[in-house]
């Protein structure tokens, strides 16, 4: 199944999906040393985003989010690709500066069509998402 989406940050990547129906900030939410979510009581607490296709709603929080994304990317703990409903400038800048492929505004409901654990291919340059169910 293919879903069309809008290009945020060019590139191609694929991997296992982690789906979270809420906003995300690299600063505070992600531990760049390990690539895991470190917020107490967060639905993704302890879960690794490293090399995953991370599906969520939008960005939030500190302007230093892009510095954390950059550090994670250099360490190899960043998500492989990002799919979100509607990006915002800090999240988009983080993906572009760190060269993490990212798309937003998917034309279908990704929270219904993509489940955590699905294998997902993102071609951010072409603006396509391909879901290969597990």
């Amino acid at each position, binding site marked *: 199944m293919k879903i069309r989406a809008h290009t*945020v940050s060019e590139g191609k990547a694929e991997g296992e999906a982690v789906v979270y129906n809420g906003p995300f900030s690299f600063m505070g939410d992600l531990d760049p040393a390990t690539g895991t979510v470190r917020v107490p009581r967060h639905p993704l607490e302890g879960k690794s985003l490293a090399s995953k296709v991370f599906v969520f709603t939008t960005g939030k929080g500190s*302007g*230093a989010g*892009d510095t954390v994304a950059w550090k994670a990317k250099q360490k190899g703990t960043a998500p492989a690709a990002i799919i979100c409903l509607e990006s915002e*400038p800090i999240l988009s800048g983080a993906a572009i500066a760190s060269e993490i492929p990212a798309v937003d505004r998917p034309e279908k409901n990704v929270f219904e069509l993509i489940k955590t654990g699905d294998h997902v291919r993102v071609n951010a340059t072409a603006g396509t998402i391909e879901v290969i169910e597990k």
Partner: protein
Amino acid sequence: MVLTDEEKRMLAGEYAPGMQRAMNLLVKLGNSFDAEKLVPITYGHVSYDGCPEDFWNLITEGVNPTPHRVTTHPSYQPEAWKEWGLPLADQWIDEHERKLITLKRLGWLRTETCAEYLIGITPRKGDVVSMAGTCMQVANNSLFGARVDRMGALVAVAAAVCGRTPMMGLLLPKNRYASHLVELDDLDISDWTLSHYHCIGYYIGDKIPGFKPVVVNGFSPNLPFDFARALVISMPTSGAVTLAHIVGTTPEAPILEAALGNKKPENVIRVGKREITKTWERLNVWDDDIVEHVAFGCPHATISEIGRIASLLEGKIIKTSLLIGASIPVEALARHQGYADIIEKAGGHIVSVCPSIRNPFTLKDVAGEKQAKSAATNSARAAHYLATVGGVKVFFGTEEECINAAITGRWKGEIPQ
């Protein structure tokens, strides 16, 4: 996006490799938001110590001194950290010094504050400014009517290198009208302190989806500057608000209809006593009442705040460590005024560092085994970051409650009911 010939040369790498990378980043970001063009900035603001060194080196490589002004966020002060006996301070000196060499080469100013409007650097209404730091963005956008878009710290360095930023988001007048309205319910604000304004700002930020502009209605005209500032800077902590109008106080909100662009708000959020109590409780994350550190000056303190703190500390000796973040000129004034002497005699420090996200006393990678395990503050923004980034227990209360905690080492703060 349409680029000028000069911008095309910057993008082609005719000037410097760093400038080419910076331009590439701005163009890609602009394209992803359908920006029509880049616009010149009146000035730029960056966080150099907050920028990873490898990125900093790439983006500034070969760049000549910039013709436009660039100012800086609070930096690290490893020499001061060392004086205070923080064991891992040494590890930060070399990187800090290396970045400073580049900063000076570029001619960028070491203002090193998150409150430049307190030291005479203020944008005019309509000035386009690119900025790192969401507290700077929301304050300059809201309180002065500058055009500042939400922007990450890496992109802010790119904008400062190029002297340009994509024409998008809150730079466009049509996007500056509030879509969300906040109304105050049956609140007696006559005895409100700074902390109350921090508290409701934190509540509002959490209730606004994304970075939609918001307007707050219900305060008397010309809300004192310190209160207006506390209200707006707390919003991007719990959420992503980057522009907050206050009716009768901020320049784009002489009346409610002006802030809303004569449209109906998408949503109305009501704030009453219950919301204040619940938010105040939420900001307090602790089990026992032992306080090891007290943090003031998030955002950087005004001279009035420092004066009040000094009068509460006069002749006292504190049991905790105490840090007041203030800009270099405000610190100098506090020294001139005799306030700094009182605070230092009591055992406190007043320096132009960040007392929240990068508070050296609560960060394990600076303080090591001397890391404070708990901290009290009167700022919702500091409370949030001391807990989430520092990972310490946090007491949120009024200035007076925080000073009492510094003197006794115990928390006796009360939640407003």
